[in-house]
């Protein structure tokens, strides 16, 4: 078992009558990218704010790097970097000046400050605009500047709230690459998003939020198994000699739960990667194999299916 850097137990946030976060439990291991996933208003941001001690916890508890954000918020905030949803900077200050303010708040010595700021800015490819006022920055540059702040702090945990919403595709790709680089340096990343394919691309594990609860949690493959009943979809393009029933042969492969046929294309839904077996089956039937590919099911498919199932009354509780 790897060391948990964040662990929440029964974390609850209630405003007068409405419960925004309802008794959630989750653990984030050191060095992983953990995705908080769910529609807007599902309680992701509130969970993050509670972890940073920026909003009161109604019930339950959360530990960040072993510290209690309620009683030791400064210790938590010194070690965790936070990039809020649509982060703001002082427009009239330059990128370097904005970071300098943070560095002063962190209590870094002046010499250390200059070095750390220069390093952090070049890490996010903002080195050449360090002396430009932030009001001239695009949204992607602002988000990168926010990440530079986290890098400069030397944070052990980076908490990113909707970091890629509103970015153009290229900026998104660049940003996700930066996140992965953080991970390689041993930083634990907590990423909240409603953009499923991005979460799937970078996250090791995800927690699916719905109306204040975590309804699903695990790796994408685990979720797929749980929701779709299978983790893999293998596509086979093969022409079989007349008489040979490829569909039946595929169905006979252990682990395959369903086969769909469209012309010469077969879609095999399976709990494991059944490509070798599928190839063998085609060859055994004396067929011609033209293409073979495997697809992990998309988070989007899982998500859509999950909420469809939830809509049916009998499926409400068993999935959680």
């Amino acid at each position, binding site marked *: 078992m790897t060391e948990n850097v964040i662990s929440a137990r029964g974390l609850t946030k209630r405003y007068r009558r409405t419960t925004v976060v309802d008794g959630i439990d989750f653990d984030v291991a050191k060095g992983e990218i953990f995705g908080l996933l769910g529609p807007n208003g599902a309680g992701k*941001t*509130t969970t993050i*704010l509670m972890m*940073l001690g*920026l*909003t009161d916890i109604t019930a339950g508890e959360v530990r960040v790097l072993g510290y209690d954000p*309620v*009683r*030791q*918020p*400064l*210790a938590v*905030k*010194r070690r*965790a*970097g*936070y*990039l*809020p*949803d*649509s*982060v*703001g*900077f*002082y*427009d*009239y200050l330059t990128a370097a000046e904005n970071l300098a*303010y*943070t560095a*002063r*708040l*962190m*209590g870094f010595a002046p010499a250390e400050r200059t070095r750390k700021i220069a390093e952090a800015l070049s890490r996010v490819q903002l080195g050449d605009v360090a002396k430009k006022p932030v009001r001239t920055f695009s949204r992607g540059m602002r988000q990168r500047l*926010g990440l530079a*702040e986290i890098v400069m*702090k030397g944070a052990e945990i980076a908490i990113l709230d909707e970091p890629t919403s509103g970015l153009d595709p290229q900026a998104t790709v660049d940003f996700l690459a930066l996140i992965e680089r953080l991970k390689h340096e041993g930083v634990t990343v907590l990423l909240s998003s409603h953009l499923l394919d991005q979460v799937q691309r970078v996250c090791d594990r995800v927690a699916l939020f719905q109306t204040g609860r975590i309804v699903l949690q695990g790796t994408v493959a685990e979720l797929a198994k749980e929701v779709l009943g299978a983790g893999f979809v293998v596509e086979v393009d093969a022409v079989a000699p007349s008489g040979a029933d490829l569909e039946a042969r595929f169905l006979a492969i252990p682990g395959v739960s369903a086969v769909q046929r469209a012309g010469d294309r077969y879609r095999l839904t399976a709990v494991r990667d059944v490509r070798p077996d599928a190839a063998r089956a085609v060859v055994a039937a004396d067929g011609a194999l033209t293409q073979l590919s495997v697809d992990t099911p998309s988070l989007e498919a899982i998500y859509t299916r999950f909420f469809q199932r939830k809509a049916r009354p009998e499926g409400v509780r068993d999935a959680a």
Partner: protein
Amino acid sequence: MRREGSVFQGLGAVVLKELSDQMSSIRIFVLEFLVAAIAFVALYRAIGRLADTTAEDPFVFLRLFTVDTPPVPSFAGLLGFLIPLVAIGLGFDSVSSEHNRRTLSRVLSQPIYRDALLMGKFLAGMATLGIMLLGLWLLVIGAGLLLLGVPPSGDEVMRSLVFLIIALFYCGVWLALAMLLSIVFRSAATSALVALGLWLFFVLIWPILSSALAMVIAPPDVRYVLLGLPTPATVEMQQVLARFSPNQLFAEAVLAILSPSTRSLGPIFLEQLQGAVVGTALPLRQSLLIAWPQIVGLIASTIVLFVAGYVVFQRQEVRA
């Protein structure tokens, strides 16, 4: 529940940042230009009038602050009128602008408490106002030296310095009020309008309203009316009501300190003056005693308004 770490952590950084923002802003430049220009006019006219009587008056320097040459009010009177404007100009958007720029959650996710942010903004505002007042004070003393050709006595310097401190607390009241409004209202325009409304209310409307109210609460006695005299109860009530306005407190305190012959700030009976050498100066200590309730009132209002803002700010959600 105790929080760990000092609430003053990061205070210095916040003060420095706010101070440098204010000093470089166009807003403060305009306000200070306005104040300096008006003060210069008042001073110029006062000197023109005093130049003839220099030799006769032992407190000619203090007269620079208090003499009024209609239609221009005295220098001290002008400050009583303008200080609120400058303080409101500095404070009306100090917290709401952080919300609107979306910098609040990012700044508060640094290892500081909210206390430091609010306190830092207030102290920086006070420092700016203090520097402005000190500048004006030096202007008056310098102009007096040059144009009147008499050096100020030690007592006069002390009294004018006390005046400076009273003016600073008067600034504090309005700055704390403006900051409270900037916390309560997210929109800077609303906060500015409410602050300016209160300013006009206390400067223009409350003096009239308080005497009208006093008439209702303590109606004049027929016996006094027949004699053509004001009823003591009515006068007292009117003064009590008027003193709810910080402007009134400031005006009274300034009167006691800058006019050394002031023996009372309220109505007194003739027999209470028995044995007094009317028109002679009181020692500074005695003048301070007379103005003390007003000074305490200003300090207390500053603290009460700041605490109110503090409480609201602590309970506010940081998310935009």
